[in-house]
């Protein structure tokens, strides 16, 4: 049993390897695993850990559906190797949901009908949530900028921006 890590210092690996040992925290829990070098972080989360809230869309960093938090920063799960996540702390939508920290945003998404097919929603929630941790009252322009890297193919952007906005406008909802 390894001890709890210090923050974010990956181990050095001296020889090129195909399988990499990693140790990271996922949604607060310590995880040890051996991964193929080519495995993307999002595939590791989905297939090895069963955390299927991060979705796979384009797998080339464009659609944003695989967005997760790595050491508190938004990242594309398809543009990070699981091997690179050694020594880091990951939060997925499952973790954010369980901790309750995004509950008001999730409620707002429901009230504003901001989730249609739901494919983009986990990443939208994490992305919008990240903005609200830095800026408690962003403008519509700032909200749009924040989610500009996340595709909603139902094109429900208006409702999504409404939902984010309603979190700090007296809890009121838009039409």
């Amino acid at each position, binding site marked *: 049993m390894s001890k709890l890590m210090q923050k974010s210092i990956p181990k050095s690996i001296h*020889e090129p*390897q195909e399988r990499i040992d990693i140790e990271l925290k996922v949604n607060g829990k310590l995880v040890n695993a051996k991964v193929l070098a080519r495995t993307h972080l999002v595939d590791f989360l989905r297939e090895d850990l069963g955390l299927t809230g991060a979705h796979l869309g384009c*797998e080339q960093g464009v659609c944003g559906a695989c967005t997760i938090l790595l050491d508190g920063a*938004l990242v594309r799960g398809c543009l990070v*190797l699981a091997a690179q996540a050694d020594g880091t702390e990951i939060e997925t939508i499952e973790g954010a949901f369980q901790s309750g920290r995004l509950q008001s945003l999730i409620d707002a998404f429901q009230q504003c009908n901001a989730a249609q097919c739901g494919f983009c929603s986990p990443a939208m929630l994490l992305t919008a949530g990240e903005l609200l941790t830095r800026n408690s009252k962003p403008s519509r322009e700032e909200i749009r900028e924040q989610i500009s890297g996340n595709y909603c193919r139902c094109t429900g952007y208006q409702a999504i921006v409404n939902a984010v906005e309603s979190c700090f406008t007296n809890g009121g909802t838009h039409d």
Partner: protein
Amino acid sequence: MKSPSFLYVRPESFDAVFALLAEYGDDAKILAGGQSLLPSLNMRLSAPAVLIDISLLQELKEIKEVKNIEDSNKAKDTLHVGALVKYCEIETSSLIETYAPLLYRALPFVAHKAVRSRGTFGGSIAFADAASETPAMTLAHEAIFVLRSALGERRVRADDFFLGLYETAIQPNEILVRAEFKKPHLGQRCVFREIMRRKGDYATVGLGIRGYINQDICQDLRIVYFAVADKPLVSTRVVEVLRNRKMDTAGIDFAISYLEEDIQVYGDTYHDEHTKMHLIRVLLKRSLLELIQMEYAPTEGSENV
């Protein structure tokens, strides 16, 4: 799609990196932030045998101001920007704003937040995408690149660094350590503009301009165009025409009439060379007017986008 198989290594010293480069040569690729390399692997555009993750090389993560205290007349203060400095750090750095204002202004146009949180300055420079803002604005600021190998260091001017499509002066045994920016004089004016289909996408065309306006004459004018050819291009002809010429709308229009002598434009999948030439002409006019702080007022029938 998924990456092809490769081996992964994360050395903690430059010597170990150089030993790996010596052993694997062209079969090895340096992994910095991975925001260009991983998409290219996912799309199977490249298939390196080994990825060398350089994230443990702490020296590459610094933004450092080097003051010249010896002779304030000769050399100027310099800003060293390490190859592993992330976009999100450049975006918020007041030192970058001072030393490389065009780079600073271009950063919000680079991809999106979740990419800028990992993408690195040096990765973008070494990747040398012709439509990317970072190489072009570094060229606009005439940065010096420091390349290191087991044999030592060499310094390459940005003008000599970008050789063609994804091609740079970096040799297979070298890695990019940092870029160095000289401190601009007070009063330098800068304009960055690009036209894109969607903010965060690669530019359709773009440019950066810097210079000093003195009694309607622009001095030390430098213009760099990007997303127009196989690498960012430095203006020669238009700048020459503007030299010692009054920078008013007539002077600007006259200079822009030389644009076709300035650059040879290539088309891409979405825009042919005529469209790109048209767009860069419009953008150049708007930008030069912005430089002299005049409003762009299109007349009827003029080139509107």
